[in-house]
């Protein structure tokens, strides 16, 4: 038994261009308004999307900005109608699209709770019965008789949320509203959702917080540019989505990196002031830099803990016995995470001739999520550079956890038996 069912739903919006308005005739004739427009005057927000949500389950909708998530939610809420296809929803729907959307700033919180509740389909008596619960949940008891325009945005939002969840809907639609509350309130909301599920209600969650979707939802759908890309178990869908995000990031980093080397600027007046660039005598030249992933594929996105190899291709114009290879890793704040060279690691140079390969292999890239930049250099033992590439190469480290800092050591937790987690 499904609580929500979308079958072959498409939604076309009017694109507002030079001629802003529909004609009076088309407005009066109503429904055919969109069909008279040429394709370049319309925008397809959802294209033949179908999915169903089982009763009593939590379902996530993920995707990039503009992928049609919110449109899908509005269709389920009944706020807009599909251009073609059908949307079926079983039971009373409450939509948390914008919290406190119906509040009037001039009147008190108490009166707003009543009016908002009535708007969402409660009777006056229902609200009276739940009034205390709503106020306590929102934590605004002291201010309940003050006009809501004097509320902080957090109070405003909590009150909106408290009313909406107390409508006791069969289907709850949530659009990214948890992103605005503080930690404690977010936890309260999550508890509410779980409580909902236990009572056999359905939750549809639109979110950019993939961790939340993974934790809270049984199933998920991934929309991209109005089309359904994947559907099913939420962990699998989130994984597929993350992989795709990595790939597109990789493409843009690759393009940036290719650009950086090609446009390498002239040596800076003082190389120590240079923020990025390339300089040196050129007697030994770094002709190529590649970052390699586990299976020796060039890559720009690595998962925290994965191996990474930095492979340099160098060319010496004449044989030399005085050379040092070095690398440095910097995070986005410009903090050096790690730096070393062959001299520091007690390697005595003997001979370098012609084209050669140098590989710096990292067994486990134990960094937290973020963007990192790379220095690579070859220079004389006294420091005079042959070829210095400063911060020309960028890569990204992704991680499933939101931990902070720079270094992410391999770790685990251990507890005695009287500490328990759910």
């Amino acid at each position, binding site marked *: 038994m499904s609580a929500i069912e979308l079958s072959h739903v498409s939604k076309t919006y009017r694109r507002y261009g030079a001629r802003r308005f529909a004609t009076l005739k088309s*407005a*009066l004739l109503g429904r055919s308004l969109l069909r008279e427009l040429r394709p370049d005057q319309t925008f397809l927000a959802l294209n033949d999307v179908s999915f169903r949500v089982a009763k009593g389950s939590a379902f996530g909708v993920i995707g990039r900005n503009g992928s049609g998530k919110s449109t899908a939610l509005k269709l389920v809420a009944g706020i807009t109608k599909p251009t073609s296809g059908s949307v079926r929803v079983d039971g009373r729907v409450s*939509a948390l699209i914008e919290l406190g*959307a*119906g509040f009037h700033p001039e009147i008190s919180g108490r009166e707003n709770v009543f009016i908002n509740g009535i708007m969402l389909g409660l009777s006056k008596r229902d609200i009276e019965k739940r009034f205390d619960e709503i106020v306590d949940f929102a934590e605004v008891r002291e201010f309940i008789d003050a006009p809501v325009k004097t509320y902080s945005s957090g109070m405003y939002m909590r009150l909106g949320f408290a009313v909406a969840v107390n409508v006791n809907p069969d289907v709850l639609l949530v659009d990214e509203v948890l992103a605005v509350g503080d930690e404690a309130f977010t936890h309260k909301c999550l508890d509410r959702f779980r409580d909902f599920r236990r009572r056999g209600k359905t939750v549809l969650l639109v979110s950019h917080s993939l961790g939340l979707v993974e934790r809270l939802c049984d199933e998920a759908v991934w929309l991209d540019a109005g089309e359904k890309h994947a559907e099913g178990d939420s962990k699998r869908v989130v994984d597929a989505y993350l992989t795709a995000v990595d790939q597109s990031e990789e493409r843009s980093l690759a393009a940036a990196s290719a650009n950086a080397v090609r446009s390498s600027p002239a040596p800076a007046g003082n190389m120590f002031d240079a923020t990025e660039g390339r300089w040196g005598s050129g007697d030994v030249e770094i002709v190529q830099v590649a970052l390699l992933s586990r299976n020796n594929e060039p890559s720009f996105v690595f998962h925290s803990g994965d191996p990474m190899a930095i492979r340099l291709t160098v060319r010496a114009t004449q044989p030399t016995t005085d050379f040092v290879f070095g690398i440095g890793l910097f995070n986005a704040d410009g903090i050096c995470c790690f730096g070393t060279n062959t001299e520091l690691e007690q390697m005595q140079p003997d001979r370098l001739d012609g084209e050669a390969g140098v590989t710096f292999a990292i067994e486990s890239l134990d960094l937290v999520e973020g963007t990192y930049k790379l220095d690579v250099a070859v220079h004389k033992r006294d420091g005079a550079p042959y070829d210095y590439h400063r911060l020309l190469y960028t890569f990204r480290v992704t991680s499933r956890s939101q931990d902070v800092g720079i270094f992410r050591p391999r770790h685990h937790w251990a507890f005695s038996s009287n500490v328990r987690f759910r």
Partner: protein
Amino acid sequence: MFSNLGSLLRYRGLIQSLVARELKARYRGSVLGFVWSFVNPLLLLSIYSFVFTTVMRNNDDPQTRPFAVFLFCGLLPWTWFSASLTEATSSLISGGNLIKKVLFPAEVLPIVSVLANMVHFLLGLLVLAAFMVAFRHFPDAASLPWFPVVVAVQLVFTLGLSFALSALTVHFRDVRDLLTNALTLWFFATPIIYPYFMPSVSRFLVLFRLNPFYHLAVSYQEILFFGQFGHVRSLLLLAALSVVVFLSGYWLFDRMRDSFAEAV
């Protein structure tokens, strides 16, 4: 359409509380508060009375004395009518948040505008009654039962127009500006500041009779001021027309409903 119309009854609790909110919110933060509902018509009336009895004395008709009471009988319903239309026209746009973010019956918004102004109208009647006592000019008790009928006709007529105008404004914002000017013209084309039996009115009577508000104004004035209600037939005709206006206004609204969430 008719099923939607029927569901309006279900929303009466919502309409009721929104009207109450509208009235409460309007004077929140002002010193006089609700007293403004009485002071507003009083001030309006003093301005008009001053202009027409002191500045422009020349067309002083003995039948319209006391002029303040005569003026009030036409001005009160007109204020209700024009304020309702002005507010209803922008109601969907100013309530855009509700239409876009909450599943909300859009027709409630223009209805609330009309009803909130009706409450002001009814409060204004108290001021009118006070004036009647002060000037010792009382309506004819025999025609008074017709008064609620006139109010009902005006209500239905105003609602119909409000539906149509509010729906059209969503797509054509020009309606708002057109309406402001049309209302000014309409006001002067209706016997409110002058009596309907003025010679220049009689000359163009056919044209005047085409104006729906002419019949409302004449009915109000006959019932409340002249004390002889002879306009019954026209009023009943207007009642029939109002039902037609109401239904077509609602039809248009219903027709365009789906586009509101996108175009607001």
